[in-house]
């Protein structure tokens, strides 16, 4: 499974970086479902069209997970902007996810 939340890469200014995110999940296992739901919601609320989410199901494609040194799922890899960052788990700590993405709750764009 390879889903893109926004297949068109929108143009953005230097102050609004574009996020390329890759989320590794295991089918419909509970933590994977939760991570997917949380990520899509946060992106919808905070990044609008400034992101591309690539969801990789390791049950279908484990090779991609091994190539990216993924040891546990769910794992979110923030590929761009650099540096690459990794969050392991069901993304239950949303503040931490936003902090890693460099987004503060107060900075939500209308």
């Amino acid at each position, binding site marked *: 499974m390879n889903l893109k939340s926004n297949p068109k890469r929108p143009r953005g200014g230097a102050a609004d970086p574009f996020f390329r995110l890759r989320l590794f*999940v295991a089918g419909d296992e509970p933590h994977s479902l939760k991570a997917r739901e949380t990520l899509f919601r946060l992106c919808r609320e905070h990044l609008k069209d400034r992101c591309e989410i690539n969801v990789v199901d390791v049950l279908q494609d*484990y090779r991609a*997970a*091994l190539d990216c040194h993924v*040891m546990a*799922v769910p794992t979110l890899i923030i590929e761009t902007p650099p540096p690459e960052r990794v969050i392991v788990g069901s993304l239950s700590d949303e503040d931490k996810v936003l902090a890693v993405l460099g987004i503060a709750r107060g900075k939500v764009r209308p």
Partner: protein
Amino acid sequence: MTEKKPSHEELQARLERAEAVLAALRRGEVDMLLGARDPLVVRLKSLADENERLVREWQTTFDNVNDAIWLLDAEHRIQRSNRTAERFFGKVREEFIGRRCWEIVHGTQEPIPECPLLRLRESLRREILELPIGDRWFEVTVDPVLDGNGNYSGAVHMVSDITERKRLEEWRRASEENFRRFLDGLPLGARVVSEEGDTLYANRAFLDMHGCDSVEEFQNIPSRERYTPAAHTEHLSRREKRRRGEYVPPEYEISIVRKDGAIRHLHVQRDEILWDGKRHFQVLYRDITERKRMEEERDRVFQRLRETLGTTMKVAVRVVEMRDPYTAGHQRRVADIARAIAVEMSLPAEQIDGLRYAASVHDLGKVAVPADILTKPSVLTAPERALIQIHSQTGYDILKDIDFPWPIARMVLEHHERIDGTGYPNGLSGEKLLMESRILAVADVVEAMALHRPYRPALGLDAALQEIEAGRGRLYDAKVADICLRLFREKGYILI
């Protein structure tokens, strides 16, 4: 291909990622772990689900074990109870909780003196008590529960109904005791030995056979001295065979040397038994010394009787042959032919012995025939022939009251009978005639025709065999005739 050595930064990143994985595992947020190189994955169930499942499994097991189980706190108050305990004591769970176990089990306000919990506080190790309540037996097992510092913090209290086990133990003890009493009073020697040959028990009769006062005294005599040399060799051979797992008959005879040096012969029967709950052997000994002595005496007497009888018969034969020199040697030759036929027919050795005996005296009845008729050098008249023919009956009358181990008298009586019933004296036929009589008839005709007679010259062996061939199946038993013909014609048997 050599793997590129990772940089410090890469190693740092991997370490951070591993730590992130560990943290996620601790939070219980991981569905699956992936191998570093292989496509193997370890799927993690939701910890909560897993915990719930484990609790359910534990509770089900706890409730369904056959023993009544309580978990006690440090003051011996019941904290938890399983369903079996409810059934056991006829109370619902709530009636147990908070009460002390002795209130429920014994109905007392204080623990009973032998209460295993009192010992457990000291030993901090499993303690067990077996006790009867009503008409049943119970086993109470208590195991300590220790806190992190190794201090007593409670106990697992288990009550099992062991009535059946107790009954079986009691039954086994009683049956073994009965068995021991039975062996004690047995007139046969009885011994229980281990697989290694150690004597675990011996009754009075057995010790008396060996002239010993106790099992210890018996054990202290080396086996070499307990047996005669031949019996000791056999004993070692049996022991070696048993050691190799080979078959040894369960019954045999041994010859022992008593402490006073006397030799006794024993019949032994060895059977596997359970003794003190273990596999051993029960060996029964019957003293057959007296029986052996009587058998030997009987054999000696029998042998003497045979010899006496043999001498008597020889005297009788000599009397006949002195009166009838033409038949001198006839009986011996007939006996030889008859024996050769019987051997070819594979008759049992015992039967052949009887046949030879009968053949060597078959003309005994001629003692009653006037000597001048026996030696008359011309053809006999009808009355003379009739006188000669009564010799079978006379022989029978002389022999019939002698107690031979074979039907000698009947063979003598029937040696002139023919299988078609045309013989004398009784005109018996076929199966009514003894097989030995049928053989004797053929041997007698061959010898008589082949050699010289007072009233005619020898007709020769060929004529004799032709007579047998012509009468085969009519006058003479077909099988006997065939074998006789084969003996002379093919196997080169010669009349001497």
